[in-house]
């Protein structure tokens, strides 16, 4: 006779020791610069992910107002005169007229239309000023009319997603790379650092590189049909023609080009894993890379294709070594004063109490879609190990790309589904009594 494992019967609840969850169907909203993620607490992936970029046509809406296009389907559609805009700046909300609309759209499009029935947990970056926080709680209670609200730090949530209450969270987002040391689920404010070297920066670098070597960048919407060509040969494609006045706007073209650049980042760009910095001249780099596999081809939407060798390392090197970034475009970060990733880590660790340093370096969590660059974790591991040779350094990066991209949301989902967390919600009653300033007192 085979002895069956005693399975938990549906009649008995799991013991509280094993299971601390108590789901109250809260909604978790993680608004970022590139994507807005929303879903029910207790789930492992956000149900609704919409781009933070939105399209708008001035004067096309009701009463001559602007007409907005939100969500993946709408924002990519080809419309004459549609501008693409983003309400975020430096990771925090800059346009308070639009951001709440996007948040609402993210929730109502797929989750629920009854916002007043679900407590809402939102995430914020550690550098969010208190003015913005108060504005957020105002919007949430006045506009969304939620029953309860909480504002959690992205860094802390990302730590929770990896099961860490203490550690160093390296978040490579679209607008910033931010380093957040956390201890007992609280952010160590003195150690928070960031640099504008995130995904947007990387896209700009690649764009600048393409411009420098005369690689024509095309977007998918421009191409009607294409036929294969040899590498470096001009594209043989039929392009879409636009009648005068019907052309898409520059911002739309740029937005669509960015999608191609994202594809390039995903499948061609690579991080130099060392040892040391990427050799400065192409020749040195080529000789250093003799052992590594050869080039990687990339085909643009119009069929133009190139095999990238050392260049695919060079475009990412600016993240670790800002002086080697390309500066041939406007609004680039200052190569000399911007801190590279390793300097950021160093800066961040400087103000951490010595007793925590060891523990924190043993729990380094890498998150954010930008960290999915090929070789990124290896490089970070090597940089930290070189900077702190004494203590044992352990870098944790979720192997699952979904978990890596949505770590902030996932942590929020875990937090909001815990039974012990429910005493922390800011209720409507409390908000009415104390005003928006309560967020400073409660969400530390």
């Amino acid at each position, binding site marked *: 006779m085979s002895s069956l494992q005693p399975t938990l019967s549906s009649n008995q609840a799991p013991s509280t020791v094993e299971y601390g969850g108590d*789901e109250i169907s809260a909604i978790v909203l993680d608004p970022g610069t590139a994507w807005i993620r929303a879903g029910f607490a207790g789930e492992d992936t956000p149900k609704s992910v919409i781009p933070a970029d939105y399209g708008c046509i001035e004067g096309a809406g009701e009463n001559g107002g602007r007409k907005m296009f939100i969500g993946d389907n709408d924002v990519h559609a080809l419309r004459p005169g549609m501008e693409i805009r983003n309400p975020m700046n430096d990771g925090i909300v800059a346009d308070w007229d639009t951001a709440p609309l996007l948040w609402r759209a993210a929730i109502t499009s797929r989750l629920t239309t009854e916002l007043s029935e679900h407590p809402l947990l939102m995430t914020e970056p550690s550098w969010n000023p208190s003015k913005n926080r108060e504005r957020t709680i105002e919007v949430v209670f006045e506009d969304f009319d939620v029953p*309860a609200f909480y504002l959690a730090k992205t860094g802390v949530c990302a730590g929770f997603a990896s099961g860490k209450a203490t550690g160093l969270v390296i978040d490579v987002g679209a607008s910033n790379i931010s380093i957040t040391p956390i201890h007992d689920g*609280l952010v160590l404010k003195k150690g928070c650092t960031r640099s504008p070297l995130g995904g947007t920066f990387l896209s700009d670098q690649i764009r600048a590189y393409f411009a420098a070597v005369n690689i024509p960048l095309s977007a998918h919407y421009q191409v009607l049909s294409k036929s294969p060509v040899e590498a470096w040969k001009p594209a043989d494609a039929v392009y879409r023609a636009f009648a005068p006045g019907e052309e898409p706007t520059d911002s739309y073209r740029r937005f669509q080009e960015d999608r191609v650049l994202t594809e390039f980042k995903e499948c061609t760009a690579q991080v130099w894993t060392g040892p040391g910095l990427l050799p400065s001249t192409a020749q040195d780099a080529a000789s250093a890379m003799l052992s590594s596999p050869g080039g990687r081809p990339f085909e643009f939407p119009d069929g133009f294709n190139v095999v990238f060798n050392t260049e695919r390392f060079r475009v990412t090197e600016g993240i670790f070594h800002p002086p080697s970034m390309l500066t041939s475009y406007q609004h680039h970060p200052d190569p000399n004063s911007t801190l590279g990733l390793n300097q950021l880590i160093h800066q961040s660790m400087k103000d951490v*109490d010595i007793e925590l340093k060891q523990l924190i370096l043993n729990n380094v969590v890498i998150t954010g879609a930008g960290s999915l660059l090929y070789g990124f974790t290896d490089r970070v591991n090597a940089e930290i190990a070189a900077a702190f040779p004494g203590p044992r350094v352990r870098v944790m990066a979720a192997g699952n790309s979904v978990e890596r991209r949505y770590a902030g949301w996932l942590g929020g989902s875990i937090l909001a589904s815990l039974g012990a967390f429910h005493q922390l919600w800011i209720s409507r*009653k409390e908000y009415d009594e104390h005003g928006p300033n309560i967020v400073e007192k409660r969400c530390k």
Partner: protein
Amino acid sequence: MSGFQDVRDVMDISGPSECTARAPPSKKQKTVEKRPDGITRELFALLGENPPPVAIVENKFKEKPRWMGKANPWVWKDFTNPARNDGLVLRHWERKSEESQALDYRFSKFNVKADIPSYSDGEYEVLKDPDWPREETDYLFNLCREYDLRFIIIWDRYDFLDGKTRSVEDLKARYYSVCRSLMELRTPLNQMSPEETQFFGMLDFDKERESARKKMAAVLFARTPAEVSEEEMLLAELKRIVMNQQRTLEERKDLFNRLEMPNSTGSIAPYTGSQGLAHLREMMVSSSDKNKKRKSIAMGGNGPDGAQQGPAVASAADKSGNTAAASQKEAPQLKKQVRKLTDDEEKEYGVMYHEKLSQGVKFRSTMVATNVKGGTAQKVQLALAQLEIAQKLTMPTAKTIKKYEQLQSAVGILLDTRKLLEKVEQELRVLKAQQEAAKEET
């Protein structure tokens, strides 16, 4: 069964009576076999009596769970958390049967707060510290309450209006000193229960020591790779040395054991000549026969135990009277062979004669004669230890031993004298006191 039927079919035998008649024995056999499902009969037969050496995988589906009773419905239910004071109503799924006992929210037990003391204005008079204004102390205590004594976080968030920059140790020192004074103020130290006293002792925060410790930790943290590897090397070296030391100690112990073995004191001189060897042989051969042996040893006077007489312990038998007698016989002959040494030569070669020696090999250091006897001996040892003179000499040559013995006796005499002196002085004092008393009386 099918095989049985097949055979019957092949042989064209029919009739249920025979079949049933045959059935019982086969059935019996089957109950003995108990063949599992996943194995063919032929294979099972090969296994014989022994249980199969490997687990047999059974191709069976998981058993259907047997639910106890009816399924219990869940309800979407309002609940309040007693840990909150605003009466926020949230909703969750709950078992219908648990409805009655759901009065107390089960997660509210996790709402644990650190116990931070608070002080009144009067009490603060005692807690005053010139370095800490009242407002800042209040601020610190509020932060402690807010962050449940996570001092690292408190330090991180510490932002008192134009206050001094303070280290984690400063904050801890202030907090603990206030707690300590407050505790002492409320219950005097001598009225505290043992637990309270223990807690009181725990509140003693040594800022200097803590800062020094952190500094050391920082140094340790900032080691370069070279230093780390050097340290690792040194640790390995240390381990090696310790292991070697252990081995040396063991070897030394072994050596001591060997040296302390009971040894023969008789000389081997009787066996040096061919005559002696022949005698030895005879002795060994004869040892097999008890009677013979008795005879052979009879001439040597008192005989040794029979057990000692085995051929293997022939050398041990040397100390028996038999050989002693032999050595006595040959003694004058030996003395002729020994050259007489002059005093100078004796000194040069380190030859010396001892008056009384006990058996066995010994270290000279263990042979220091104690000239002082009785209670003084211990006192002498004590005095020497106070003077930091080793109990055992590191280089115990004959000369040093002699000196050491002299020293011991000198110390002994001095100690005796002192004792005597003290005794006399004491007596003197007593007598003087008596005398004075007598004077006063008169």
